[in-house]
Protein backbone atom coordinates (compact mmCIF):
# COMPACT_ATOMS: atom_id res chain seq x y z
CA UNK A 1 0.00 0.00 0.00
CA UNK A 2 2.85 2.44 0.75
CA UNK A 3 4.07 2.75 -2.87
CA UNK A 4 0.50 3.05 -4.12
CA UNK A 5 -0.21 5.83 -1.63
CA UNK A 6 3.02 7.56 -2.48
CA UNK A 7 2.09 7.46 -6.13
CA UNK A 8 -0.92 9.68 -5.32
CA UNK A 9 1.18 12.16 -3.38
CA UNK A 10 3.20 15.02 -4.77
CA UNK A 11 6.92 14.47 -4.07
CA UNK A 12 6.95 17.28 -1.49
CA UNK A 13 4.31 15.43 0.53
CA UNK A 14 6.04 12.03 0.58
CA UNK A 15 7.51 10.78 3.84
CA UNK A 16 11.12 11.53 2.89
CA UNK A 17 10.36 15.21 2.15
CA UNK A 18 7.51 16.12 4.49
CA UNK A 19 8.71 18.03 7.52
CA UNK A 20 5.34 18.84 9.09
CA UNK A 21 3.34 17.03 11.74
CA UNK A 22 1.57 13.71 11.33
CA UNK A 23 -1.81 15.31 12.07
CA UNK A 24 -1.30 17.68 9.15
CA UNK A 25 -0.09 14.84 6.94
CA UNK A 26 -3.09 12.69 7.81
CA UNK A 27 -5.31 15.19 5.97
CA UNK A 28 -3.69 14.33 2.64
CA UNK A 29 -2.81 10.73 3.50
CA UNK A 30 -6.52 9.93 3.67
CA UNK A 31 -7.26 10.68 0.00
CA UNK A 32 -3.98 9.00 -1.01
CA UNK A 33 -5.07 5.92 0.94
CA UNK A 34 -8.51 6.04 -0.68
CA UNK A 35 -6.85 6.13 -4.12
CA UNK A 36 -4.63 3.18 -3.21
CA UNK A 37 -7.55 1.09 -1.93
CA UNK A 38 -9.56 1.86 -5.04
CA UNK A 39 -6.61 0.83 -7.24
CA UNK A 40 -6.34 -2.52 -5.48
CA UNK A 41 -10.08 -3.01 -5.26
CA UNK A 42 -10.48 -2.62 -9.02
CA UNK A 43 -8.04 -5.51 -9.52
CA UNK A 44 -9.94 -7.95 -7.31
CA UNK A 45 -12.42 -10.55 -8.57
CA UNK A 46 -16.04 -9.54 -8.03
CA UNK A 47 -16.84 -12.28 -5.53
CA UNK A 48 -14.00 -11.23 -3.19
CA UNK A 49 -13.92 -7.48 -3.77
CA UNK A 50 -16.16 -6.25 -0.98
CA UNK A 51 -14.62 -8.49 1.71
CA UNK A 52 -10.98 -7.96 0.77
CA UNK A 53 -11.47 -4.22 0.38
CA UNK A 54 -13.05 -4.02 3.82
CA UNK A 55 -10.14 -5.95 5.40
CA UNK A 56 -7.64 -3.83 3.50
CA UNK A 57 -9.24 -0.63 4.77
CA UNK A 58 -9.20 -1.84 8.35
CA UNK A 59 -5.65 -3.18 8.38
CA UNK A 60 -3.97 -0.40 6.41
CA UNK A 61 -5.92 2.59 7.77
CA UNK A 62 -3.34 5.43 7.90
CA UNK A 63 -4.53 6.71 11.27
CA UNK A 64 -3.08 4.29 13.86
CA UNK A 65 -5.87 5.16 16.29
CA UNK A 66 -8.47 3.87 13.86
CA UNK A 67 -6.45 1.00 12.41
CA UNK A 68 -7.52 -2.59 13.06
CA UNK A 69 -10.79 -4.40 13.53
CA UNK A 70 -13.65 -2.00 14.40
CA UNK A 71 -14.57 -4.05 17.45
CA UNK A 72 -11.04 -3.77 18.80
CA UNK A 73 -10.79 -0.03 18.10
CA UNK A 74 -14.17 0.55 19.74
CA UNK A 75 -13.56 -1.59 22.83
CA UNK A 76 -9.93 -0.64 23.35
CA UNK A 77 -8.68 -4.09 22.31
CA UNK A 78 -5.33 -4.78 20.65
CA UNK A 79 -5.65 -3.12 17.26
CA UNK A 80 -2.55 -4.95 16.01
CA UNK A 81 -4.12 -8.32 16.67
CA UNK A 82 -5.06 -10.36 13.63
CA UNK A 83 -7.11 -12.88 15.60
CA UNK A 84 -10.42 -11.60 14.34
CA UNK A 85 -9.19 -11.96 10.77
CA UNK A 86 -8.22 -15.64 10.90
CA UNK A 87 -11.75 -16.87 10.24
CA UNK A 88 -12.30 -14.11 7.68
CA UNK A 89 -9.19 -15.02 5.70
CA UNK A 90 -10.12 -18.68 5.91
CA UNK A 91 -13.53 -17.90 4.47
CA UNK A 92 -12.00 -15.74 1.76
CA UNK A 93 -9.57 -18.51 0.81
CA UNK A 94 -12.46 -20.94 0.50
CA UNK A 95 -14.43 -18.49 -1.61
CA UNK A 96 -11.43 -18.02 -3.88
CA UNK A 97 -10.91 -21.77 -4.23
CA UNK A 98 -14.56 -22.25 -5.06
CA UNK A 99 -14.42 -19.50 -7.66
CA UNK A 100 -11.33 -21.09 -9.22
CA UNK A 101 -13.00 -24.52 -9.28
CA UNK A 102 -16.12 -23.11 -10.91
CA UNK A 103 -14.02 -21.29 -13.47
CA UNK A 104 -12.06 -24.42 -14.51
Amino acid at each position, binding site marked *: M*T*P*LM*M*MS*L*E*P*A*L*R*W*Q*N*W*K*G*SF*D*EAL*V*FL*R*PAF*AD*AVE*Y*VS*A*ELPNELRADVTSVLRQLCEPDPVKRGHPLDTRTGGNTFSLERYVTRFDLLAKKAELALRNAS
Partner: protein
Amino acid sequence: MSFADGRRRRQVVPRWRPWWVTARLGLADSGAGSRIVGTPDTATIDRRREEWLENHDIPHAADLIGTAFGMGLGERVRDAAEFVLGTETGVPAPLLVLAKTIVNGDAQLPASPIDIDHAGRHVRIHKLKNRLKNWPHDAIACIDLAREYTIVGQRPNALKPVTVALALAPHSPFVVRSAARFFLNCGDAERALAVVRRTPGVSSDPWLLAAEIAIASAAETSSRMVRAARSMINRGHFAPRHLSELASALATVELESGNRRGARKLFAAALQHPTENAVAQAEWVSSEIVELDLRISEHAPERSYEARALSSLGEGEWDAAVESAKLWRLDEPFAARSAYFGSWTAVVVSKDFSTALQFAEFGLSTKPEDLLLLNNKVVALALLDRPNEAARTLGKIDAVRAAEKSEATYLATWGLVEYRSGRPETGRVFYQRARDAAKKSRNAREEAWTMLFQAREEQRFDRQRAHGLLVEARATIHRLRRREALVAERLLEIVAQPD
Protein backbone atom coordinates in the same frame (compact mmCIF):
# COMPACT_ATOMS: atom_id res chain seq x y z
CA MET B 1 -18.64 51.50 -16.79
CA SER B 2 -16.04 52.01 -14.13
CA PHE B 3 -12.35 51.26 -14.01
CA ALA B 4 -13.17 47.59 -13.60
CA ASP B 5 -11.47 46.01 -10.65
CA GLY B 6 -8.59 48.37 -10.36
CA ARG B 7 -10.02 50.63 -7.76
CA ARG B 8 -11.27 47.84 -5.58
CA ARG B 9 -8.95 47.25 -2.69
CA ARG B 10 -6.90 44.18 -3.12
CA GLN B 11 -5.62 42.03 -0.29
CA VAL B 12 -3.42 38.95 -0.37
CA VAL B 13 -6.37 36.75 0.54
CA PRO B 14 -5.64 33.04 0.08
CA ARG B 15 -6.05 31.58 -3.36
CA TRP B 16 -8.47 28.68 -3.54
CA ARG B 17 -7.40 26.04 -6.01
CA PRO B 18 -8.12 22.32 -6.12
CA TRP B 19 -5.93 20.30 -3.80
CA TRP B 20 -3.94 18.63 -6.58
CA VAL B 21 -3.04 22.01 -8.09
CA THR B 22 -2.12 23.48 -4.70
CA ALA B 23 0.09 20.50 -3.96
CA ARG B 24 1.70 20.55 -7.39
CA LEU B 25 2.46 24.24 -7.04
CA GLY B 26 4.32 23.35 -3.86
CA LEU B 27 1.91 25.36 -1.70
CA ALA B 28 0.68 22.50 0.48
CA ASP B 29 3.60 22.58 2.87
CA SER B 30 3.54 25.35 5.45
CA GLY B 31 7.27 25.16 6.00
CA ALA B 32 6.57 25.07 9.71
CA GLY B 33 7.77 21.55 10.43
CA SER B 34 11.21 20.41 11.47
CA ARG B 35 10.89 16.62 11.38
CA ILE B 36 14.20 14.88 10.89
CA VAL B 37 13.97 12.16 8.28
CA GLY B 38 16.10 9.05 8.65
CA THR B 39 17.85 7.25 5.80
CA PRO B 40 16.08 4.08 4.71
CA ASP B 41 17.80 0.72 5.04
CA THR B 42 18.33 -0.26 1.43
CA ALA B 43 19.38 -3.85 2.13
CA THR B 44 15.82 -4.97 1.38
CA ILE B 45 16.02 -3.44 -2.08
CA ASP B 46 19.25 -5.39 -2.76
CA ARG B 47 17.62 -8.62 -1.60
CA ARG B 48 14.53 -8.02 -3.77
CA ARG B 49 16.78 -7.29 -6.73
CA GLU B 50 18.58 -10.59 -6.29
CA GLU B 51 15.22 -12.37 -6.12
CA TRP B 52 14.05 -10.62 -9.26
CA LEU B 53 17.26 -11.52 -11.10
CA GLU B 54 16.69 -15.17 -10.14
CA ASN B 55 13.02 -15.10 -11.07
CA HIS B 56 12.66 -12.66 -13.92
CA ASP B 57 8.88 -12.31 -13.68
CA ILE B 58 6.18 -9.74 -12.90
CA PRO B 59 5.51 -10.65 -9.23
CA HIS B 60 9.21 -10.32 -8.33
CA ALA B 61 9.53 -7.10 -10.34
CA ALA B 62 6.47 -5.79 -8.48
CA ASP B 63 8.09 -6.58 -5.11
CA LEU B 64 11.29 -4.82 -6.10
CA ILE B 65 9.54 -1.76 -7.52
CA GLY B 66 7.15 -1.46 -4.60
CA THR B 67 9.94 -1.69 -2.03
CA ALA B 68 12.21 0.83 -3.74
CA PHE B 69 9.47 3.33 -4.56
CA GLY B 70 8.10 3.07 -1.03
CA MET B 71 11.56 4.00 0.27
CA GLY B 72 11.67 6.95 -2.07
CA LEU B 73 14.31 5.31 -4.26
CA GLY B 74 12.33 4.61 -7.39
CA GLU B 75 15.20 5.69 -9.65
CA ARG B 76 17.19 2.65 -8.50
CA VAL B 77 14.72 0.23 -10.09
CA ARG B 78 14.21 1.85 -13.47
CA ASP B 79 15.27 -1.39 -15.20
CA ALA B 80 12.54 -3.35 -13.38
CA ALA B 81 9.99 -0.65 -14.23
CA GLU B 82 11.00 -0.82 -17.90
CA PHE B 83 10.65 -4.60 -17.73
CA VAL B 84 7.08 -4.18 -16.43
CA LEU B 85 6.23 -1.66 -19.14
CA GLY B 86 7.66 -4.03 -21.78
CA THR B 87 5.46 -6.90 -20.60
CA GLU B 88 2.29 -7.04 -22.64
CA THR B 89 -0.09 -9.15 -20.55
CA GLY B 90 -0.83 -10.04 -16.95
CA VAL B 91 0.36 -6.79 -15.42
CA PRO B 92 -1.96 -5.34 -12.76
CA ALA B 93 -3.04 -1.78 -13.56
CA PRO B 94 -1.60 -0.20 -10.36
CA LEU B 95 1.81 -1.75 -11.11
CA LEU B 96 1.72 -0.30 -14.61
CA VAL B 97 1.00 3.17 -13.26
CA LEU B 98 3.78 2.82 -10.71
CA ALA B 99 6.24 1.70 -13.38
CA LYS B 100 5.23 4.65 -15.59
CA THR B 101 5.79 7.05 -12.69
CA ILE B 102 9.29 5.67 -12.20
CA VAL B 103 10.20 5.79 -15.89
CA ASN B 104 8.48 9.06 -16.86
CA GLY B 105 8.71 10.93 -13.57
CA ASP B 106 5.89 12.53 -11.60
CA ALA B 107 3.11 14.30 -13.48
CA GLN B 108 3.70 18.01 -13.98
CA LEU B 109 1.21 20.83 -13.65
CA PRO B 110 -0.50 21.52 -17.00
CA ALA B 111 0.86 24.61 -18.77
CA SER B 112 -2.43 26.43 -18.20
CA PRO B 113 -5.49 25.79 -16.04
CA ILE B 114 -7.97 23.31 -17.46
CA ASP B 115 -11.07 24.86 -19.01
CA ILE B 116 -14.04 22.94 -17.63
CA ASP B 117 -17.57 23.72 -18.74
CA HIS B 118 -20.71 23.57 -16.61
CA ALA B 119 -21.38 19.91 -17.48
CA GLY B 120 -17.78 19.04 -16.62
CA ARG B 121 -18.20 20.74 -13.25
CA HIS B 122 -21.25 18.59 -12.53
CA VAL B 123 -19.30 15.45 -13.44
CA ARG B 124 -16.68 16.53 -10.89
CA ILE B 125 -19.36 17.17 -8.29
CA HIS B 126 -20.78 13.70 -8.90
CA LYS B 127 -17.34 12.07 -8.55
CA LEU B 128 -16.52 13.97 -5.37
CA LYS B 129 -19.87 13.12 -3.83
CA ASN B 130 -19.22 9.45 -4.60
CA ARG B 131 -15.78 9.70 -3.08
CA LEU B 132 -17.26 11.19 0.08
CA LYS B 133 -19.91 8.51 0.24
CA ASN B 134 -17.15 5.89 0.47
CA TRP B 135 -14.63 8.05 2.35
CA PRO B 136 -16.57 10.49 4.50
CA HIS B 137 -13.48 11.60 6.46
CA ASP B 138 -11.71 13.04 3.43
CA ALA B 139 -11.48 16.75 4.30
CA ILE B 140 -9.72 17.54 1.04
CA ALA B 141 -12.53 16.06 -1.05
CA CYS B 142 -14.97 18.16 1.04
CA ILE B 143 -13.10 21.34 0.19
CA ASP B 144 -12.76 20.42 -3.49
CA LEU B 145 -16.49 19.67 -3.61
CA ALA B 146 -17.31 23.02 -2.00
CA ARG B 147 -15.16 24.74 -4.61
CA GLU B 148 -17.04 23.05 -7.47
CA TYR B 149 -20.39 24.05 -5.94
CA THR B 150 -19.15 27.62 -5.57
CA ILE B 151 -18.04 27.72 -9.20
CA VAL B 152 -21.44 26.58 -10.48
CA GLY B 153 -23.13 29.21 -8.33
CA GLN B 154 -24.51 26.81 -5.71
CA ARG B 155 -22.95 28.40 -2.62
CA PRO B 156 -25.58 27.09 -0.17
CA ASN B 157 -24.61 23.52 -1.15
CA ALA B 158 -20.96 24.33 -0.49
CA LEU B 159 -21.54 25.31 3.12
CA LYS B 160 -21.95 21.77 4.46
CA PRO B 161 -18.75 20.31 2.96
CA VAL B 162 -16.80 23.37 4.13
CA THR B 163 -18.14 22.95 7.66
CA VAL B 164 -17.41 19.20 7.64
CA ALA B 165 -13.87 19.80 6.36
CA LEU B 166 -13.21 22.28 9.14
CA ALA B 167 -14.46 19.78 11.70
CA LEU B 168 -12.32 16.99 10.23
CA ALA B 169 -9.12 18.99 9.78
CA PRO B 170 -9.25 22.14 11.91
CA HIS B 171 -5.45 22.46 11.89
CA SER B 172 -4.86 22.03 8.15
CA PRO B 173 -3.67 25.28 6.52
CA PHE B 174 -5.10 24.15 3.17
CA VAL B 175 -8.54 23.47 4.63
CA VAL B 176 -8.59 26.59 6.78
CA ARG B 177 -7.35 28.95 4.06
CA SER B 178 -9.78 27.48 1.51
CA ALA B 179 -12.69 27.70 3.95
CA ALA B 180 -11.80 31.30 4.79
CA ARG B 181 -11.71 32.16 1.11
CA PHE B 182 -15.10 30.51 0.68
CA PHE B 183 -16.67 32.67 3.39
CA LEU B 184 -14.97 35.73 1.98
CA ASN B 185 -16.38 34.90 -1.43
CA CYS B 186 -19.82 34.66 0.16
CA GLY B 187 -19.34 38.20 1.48
CA ASP B 188 -18.96 37.00 5.07
CA ALA B 189 -15.53 38.40 5.94
CA GLU B 190 -16.21 38.14 9.67
CA ARG B 191 -16.76 34.41 9.50
CA ALA B 192 -13.72 34.04 7.24
CA LEU B 193 -11.66 35.79 9.87
CA ALA B 194 -13.14 33.73 12.69
CA VAL B 195 -12.24 30.51 10.86
CA VAL B 196 -8.60 31.55 10.61
CA ARG B 197 -8.38 32.95 14.11
CA ARG B 198 -9.65 29.83 15.83
CA THR B 199 -7.15 27.57 14.06
CA PRO B 200 -4.78 25.95 16.54
CA GLY B 201 -1.29 27.36 16.09
CA VAL B 202 -2.32 30.21 13.82
CA SER B 203 0.43 32.49 15.11
CA SER B 204 3.18 30.02 14.26
CA ASP B 205 2.15 29.31 10.66
CA PRO B 206 3.18 32.00 8.13
CA TRP B 207 0.43 31.07 5.67
CA LEU B 208 -2.31 31.31 8.28
CA LEU B 209 -0.87 34.53 9.67
CA ALA B 210 -0.88 36.00 6.16
CA ALA B 211 -4.52 34.97 5.76
CA GLU B 212 -5.47 36.54 9.11
CA ILE B 213 -3.88 39.87 8.23
CA ALA B 214 -5.26 40.00 4.69
CA ILE B 215 -8.77 38.96 5.71
CA ALA B 216 -8.81 41.39 8.63
CA SER B 217 -7.98 44.17 6.15
CA ALA B 218 -10.69 42.94 3.79
CA ALA B 219 -13.12 42.96 6.73
CA GLU B 220 -11.92 46.49 7.54
CA THR B 221 -10.94 45.50 11.02
CA SER B 222 -7.58 45.42 12.78
CA SER B 223 -5.47 42.32 12.66
CA ARG B 224 -4.53 40.77 16.00
CA MET B 225 -1.44 39.21 14.53
CA VAL B 226 0.62 42.09 13.19
CA ARG B 227 3.17 41.87 15.98
CA ALA B 228 3.51 38.10 15.61
CA ALA B 229 3.88 38.54 11.85
CA ARG B 230 6.62 41.16 12.17
CA SER B 231 8.48 39.03 14.63
CA MET B 232 8.20 35.95 12.38
CA ILE B 233 9.61 37.87 9.40
CA ASN B 234 12.44 39.35 11.46
CA ARG B 235 13.42 36.01 12.99
CA GLY B 236 13.97 34.53 9.55
CA HIS B 237 13.27 30.96 10.63
CA PHE B 238 11.24 30.29 7.51
CA ALA B 239 12.38 30.10 3.90
CA PRO B 240 11.50 33.28 1.90
CA ARG B 241 8.86 31.44 -0.11
CA HIS B 242 6.86 30.65 3.03
CA LEU B 243 7.06 34.28 4.14
CA SER B 244 6.15 35.79 0.78
CA GLU B 245 2.40 36.22 1.35
CA LEU B 246 2.91 37.22 4.97
CA ALA B 247 5.35 39.99 4.04
CA SER B 248 3.02 41.07 1.26
CA ALA B 249 -0.01 41.22 3.60
CA LEU B 250 1.98 43.17 6.14
CA ALA B 251 3.31 45.50 3.44
CA THR B 252 -0.26 46.31 2.41
CA VAL B 253 -1.15 47.15 6.01
CA GLU B 254 1.90 49.42 6.24
CA LEU B 255 0.99 51.11 2.98
CA GLU B 256 -2.59 51.70 4.08
CA SER B 257 -1.32 53.31 7.26
CA GLY B 258 0.92 55.58 5.21
CA ASN B 259 4.29 53.93 5.89
CA ARG B 260 5.60 53.75 2.32
CA ARG B 261 9.19 53.03 3.28
CA GLY B 262 8.21 50.12 5.50
CA ALA B 263 5.86 48.84 2.82
CA ARG B 264 8.53 48.94 0.16
CA LYS B 265 10.95 47.00 2.36
CA LEU B 266 8.33 44.35 3.09
CA PHE B 267 7.32 44.06 -0.57
CA ALA B 268 10.98 43.57 -1.45
CA ALA B 269 11.08 40.73 1.11
CA ALA B 270 7.83 39.30 -0.29
CA LEU B 271 9.36 39.22 -3.77
CA GLN B 272 12.54 37.37 -2.80
CA HIS B 273 10.96 34.01 -3.60
CA PRO B 274 7.37 35.00 -4.20
CA THR B 275 4.09 33.25 -4.69
CA GLU B 276 2.09 34.52 -7.64
CA ASN B 277 -0.41 36.06 -5.18
CA ALA B 278 2.35 38.21 -3.69
CA VAL B 279 3.49 39.24 -7.18
CA ALA B 280 -0.09 40.18 -8.10
CA GLN B 281 -0.36 42.24 -4.92
CA ALA B 282 2.85 44.12 -5.67
CA GLU B 283 1.68 44.68 -9.25
CA TRP B 284 -1.68 45.97 -8.05
CA VAL B 285 -0.08 48.30 -5.50
CA SER B 286 2.27 49.68 -8.15
CA SER B 287 -0.60 50.09 -10.56
CA GLU B 288 -3.20 51.57 -8.24
CA ILE B 289 -1.59 53.02 -5.15
CA VAL B 290 2.03 54.00 -5.49
CA GLU B 291 4.96 53.21 -7.74
CA LEU B 292 7.35 51.27 -5.52
CA ASP B 293 10.11 50.53 -8.01
CA LEU B 294 10.12 46.85 -7.13
CA ARG B 295 11.19 45.35 -10.46
CA ILE B 296 8.18 43.07 -10.28
CA SER B 297 8.56 41.67 -13.78
CA GLU B 298 11.67 39.79 -12.68
CA HIS B 299 9.49 37.52 -10.58
CA ALA B 300 7.15 35.25 -12.44
CA PRO B 301 6.09 32.16 -10.52
CA GLU B 302 3.74 29.67 -12.13
CA ARG B 303 0.19 30.90 -12.67
CA SER B 304 1.01 34.61 -12.40
CA TYR B 305 -1.98 35.38 -14.59
CA GLU B 306 -3.42 38.19 -12.51
CA ALA B 307 -0.04 39.90 -12.20
CA ARG B 308 0.53 39.51 -15.94
CA ALA B 309 -2.92 40.88 -16.76
CA LEU B 310 -2.25 43.97 -14.65
CA SER B 311 1.28 44.52 -15.91
CA SER B 312 0.26 44.00 -19.57
CA LEU B 313 -2.42 46.63 -19.14
CA GLY B 314 0.16 48.99 -17.69
CA GLU B 315 2.52 48.31 -20.57
CA GLY B 316 -0.12 48.89 -23.22
CA GLU B 317 -0.06 45.23 -24.29
CA TRP B 318 -3.80 45.10 -24.74
CA ASP B 319 -4.23 41.62 -26.22
CA ALA B 320 -1.88 40.11 -23.66
CA ALA B 321 -3.90 41.73 -20.86
CA VAL B 322 -7.12 40.12 -22.09
CA GLU B 323 -5.45 36.74 -22.68
CA SER B 324 -3.94 36.74 -19.19
CA ALA B 325 -7.34 37.65 -17.74
CA LYS B 326 -8.81 34.58 -19.47
CA LEU B 327 -6.23 32.34 -17.77
CA TRP B 328 -6.75 34.14 -14.49
CA ARG B 329 -10.46 33.37 -14.72
CA LEU B 330 -9.73 29.68 -15.36
CA ASP B 331 -7.42 29.62 -12.35
CA GLU B 332 -10.04 31.12 -10.02
CA PRO B 333 -13.38 30.56 -11.77
CA PHE B 334 -15.44 31.38 -8.67
CA ALA B 335 -13.88 34.80 -8.15
CA ALA B 336 -15.46 37.89 -9.67
CA ARG B 337 -12.29 39.93 -9.91
CA SER B 338 -11.01 38.40 -13.14
CA ALA B 339 -14.49 38.80 -14.64
CA TYR B 340 -14.55 42.49 -13.70
CA PHE B 341 -11.16 42.99 -15.19
CA GLY B 342 -11.78 41.01 -18.38
CA SER B 343 -15.24 42.43 -19.11
CA TRP B 344 -14.01 45.95 -18.64
CA THR B 345 -10.65 45.61 -20.42
CA ALA B 346 -12.13 44.01 -23.53
CA VAL B 347 -14.51 46.97 -23.85
CA VAL B 348 -12.03 49.80 -23.36
CA VAL B 349 -8.86 48.59 -25.05
CA SER B 350 -10.47 46.82 -28.00
CA LYS B 351 -13.78 46.41 -29.74
CA ASP B 352 -14.04 42.80 -28.69
CA PHE B 353 -17.41 43.19 -27.02
CA SER B 354 -18.23 39.48 -27.32
CA THR B 355 -15.26 38.65 -25.11
CA ALA B 356 -16.41 41.31 -22.67
CA LEU B 357 -19.86 39.71 -22.60
CA GLN B 358 -18.33 36.27 -22.03
CA PHE B 359 -16.33 37.51 -19.06
CA ALA B 360 -19.39 39.16 -17.53
CA GLU B 361 -21.49 36.04 -18.05
CA PHE B 362 -18.84 33.75 -16.59
CA GLY B 363 -18.71 35.97 -13.53
CA LEU B 364 -22.48 36.09 -13.24
CA SER B 365 -22.73 32.31 -13.41
CA THR B 366 -21.13 32.23 -9.95
CA LYS B 367 -22.34 35.61 -8.67
CA PRO B 368 -25.67 36.26 -10.39
CA GLU B 369 -26.50 39.40 -8.42
CA ASP B 370 -23.17 41.16 -8.63
CA LEU B 371 -23.85 44.79 -9.53
CA LEU B 372 -20.65 45.49 -11.39
CA LEU B 373 -20.88 42.30 -13.44
CA LEU B 374 -24.52 43.05 -14.32
CA ASN B 375 -23.46 46.55 -15.29
CA ASN B 376 -20.62 45.27 -17.46
CA LYS B 377 -22.95 42.78 -19.11
CA VAL B 378 -25.37 45.60 -19.97
CA VAL B 379 -22.52 47.61 -21.47
CA ALA B 380 -21.25 44.67 -23.54
CA LEU B 381 -24.77 43.87 -24.80
CA ALA B 382 -25.42 47.50 -25.69
CA LEU B 383 -22.11 47.80 -27.54
CA LEU B 384 -22.97 44.60 -29.41
CA ASP B 385 -26.10 46.44 -30.56
CA ARG B 386 -28.42 44.24 -28.55
CA PRO B 387 -30.26 47.07 -26.74
CA ASN B 388 -33.35 45.06 -25.80
CA GLU B 389 -31.30 42.43 -23.98
CA ALA B 390 -29.21 45.20 -22.45
CA ALA B 391 -32.35 46.93 -21.17
CA ARG B 392 -33.68 43.66 -19.74
CA THR B 393 -30.38 43.08 -17.91
CA LEU B 394 -30.35 46.68 -16.72
CA GLY B 395 -33.77 46.00 -15.21
CA LYS B 396 -32.20 43.29 -13.02
CA ILE B 397 -29.93 45.82 -11.33
CA ASP B 398 -31.13 47.00 -7.96
CA ALA B 399 -31.27 50.74 -8.68
CA VAL B 400 -31.02 51.80 -5.05
CA ARG B 401 -27.94 49.68 -4.39
CA ALA B 402 -26.38 50.69 -7.70
CA ALA B 403 -26.92 54.37 -6.96
CA GLU B 404 -25.41 53.93 -3.52
CA LYS B 405 -22.34 52.14 -4.83
CA SER B 406 -21.66 54.11 -7.97
CA GLU B 407 -24.36 56.44 -9.15
CA ALA B 408 -22.35 57.85 -12.06
CA THR B 409 -21.61 54.39 -13.47
CA TYR B 410 -25.24 53.33 -13.21
CA LEU B 411 -26.56 56.48 -14.88
CA ALA B 412 -23.95 56.34 -17.64
CA THR B 413 -24.85 52.72 -18.39
CA TRP B 414 -28.48 53.70 -18.59
CA GLY B 415 -27.49 56.47 -20.98
CA LEU B 416 -25.58 54.03 -23.14
CA VAL B 417 -28.63 51.77 -23.46
CA GLU B 418 -30.73 54.77 -24.44
CA TYR B 419 -28.28 55.71 -27.19
CA ARG B 420 -28.18 52.16 -28.52
CA SER B 421 -31.99 52.03 -28.43
CA GLY B 422 -31.99 54.95 -30.86
CA ARG B 423 -32.87 57.63 -28.29
CA PRO B 424 -29.81 59.89 -28.18
CA GLU B 425 -31.70 62.72 -26.50
CA THR B 426 -32.56 60.60 -23.47
CA GLY B 427 -29.05 59.14 -23.58
CA ARG B 428 -27.59 62.64 -23.30
CA VAL B 429 -29.77 63.40 -20.29
CA PHE B 430 -28.53 60.31 -18.48
CA TYR B 431 -24.91 60.96 -19.34
CA GLN B 432 -25.23 64.53 -18.12
CA ARG B 433 -26.68 63.26 -14.86
CA ALA B 434 -23.81 60.78 -14.63
CA ARG B 435 -21.27 63.57 -15.08
CA ASP B 436 -23.05 65.68 -12.50
CA ALA B 437 -22.93 62.78 -10.05
CA ALA B 438 -19.22 62.25 -10.74
CA LYS B 439 -18.52 65.96 -10.26
CA LYS B 440 -20.56 66.06 -7.09
CA SER B 441 -18.51 63.26 -5.61
CA ARG B 442 -15.33 64.85 -7.04
CA ASN B 443 -14.55 61.71 -8.94
CA ALA B 444 -12.38 62.74 -11.89
CA ARG B 445 -12.04 59.14 -13.00
CA GLU B 446 -15.76 58.54 -13.31
CA GLU B 447 -16.08 61.84 -15.12
CA ALA B 448 -13.37 60.98 -17.64
CA TRP B 449 -14.77 57.54 -18.38
CA THR B 450 -18.30 58.91 -18.67
CA MET B 451 -17.15 61.43 -21.29
CA LEU B 452 -15.23 58.81 -23.24
CA PHE B 453 -18.16 56.41 -23.32
CA GLN B 454 -20.56 59.15 -24.31
CA ALA B 455 -18.16 60.32 -27.04
CA ARG B 456 -18.20 56.79 -28.47
CA GLU B 457 -21.99 57.01 -28.74
CA GLU B 458 -22.01 60.54 -30.12
CA GLN B 459 -19.72 59.45 -32.96
CA ARG B 460 -22.82 57.69 -34.30
CA PHE B 461 -25.14 60.68 -33.92
CA ASP B 462 -23.30 63.99 -33.64
CA ARG B 463 -19.58 64.06 -34.46
CA GLN B 464 -19.11 67.63 -33.39
CA ARG B 465 -20.50 66.88 -29.98
CA ALA B 466 -18.28 63.78 -29.86
CA HIS B 467 -15.23 65.91 -30.66
CA GLY B 468 -16.11 68.30 -27.84
CA LEU B 469 -16.41 65.45 -25.37
CA LEU B 470 -13.05 64.02 -26.45
CA VAL B 471 -11.36 67.37 -25.95
CA GLU B 472 -12.84 67.61 -22.48
CA ALA B 473 -11.93 64.01 -21.69
CA ARG B 474 -8.34 64.56 -22.84
CA ALA B 475 -8.05 67.44 -20.39
CA THR B 476 -9.32 65.24 -17.55
CA ILE B 477 -7.22 62.17 -18.32
CA HIS B 478 -4.02 63.71 -17.01
CA ARG B 479 -5.59 63.72 -13.55
CA LEU B 480 -5.75 59.93 -13.55
CA ARG B 481 -3.03 57.63 -12.30
CA ARG B 482 -0.45 56.74 -14.92
CA ARG B 483 -1.75 53.32 -15.83
CA GLU B 484 -5.41 54.29 -15.85
CA ALA B 485 -4.52 57.32 -17.96
CA LEU B 486 -2.77 55.05 -20.46
CA VAL B 487 -5.89 52.92 -20.80
CA ALA B 488 -8.13 55.97 -21.04
CA GLU B 489 -5.92 57.28 -23.85
CA ARG B 490 -6.33 53.97 -25.61
CA LEU B 491 -10.12 54.33 -25.50
CA LEU B 492 -9.82 57.91 -26.62
CA GLU B 493 -7.76 56.74 -29.59
CA ILE B 494 -10.39 54.09 -30.47
CA VAL B 495 -13.25 56.55 -30.15
CA ALA B 496 -11.45 59.24 -32.15
CA GLN B 497 -11.14 56.84 -35.09
CA PRO B 498 -14.65 55.53 -35.64
CA ASP B 499 -15.38 52.82 -38.23
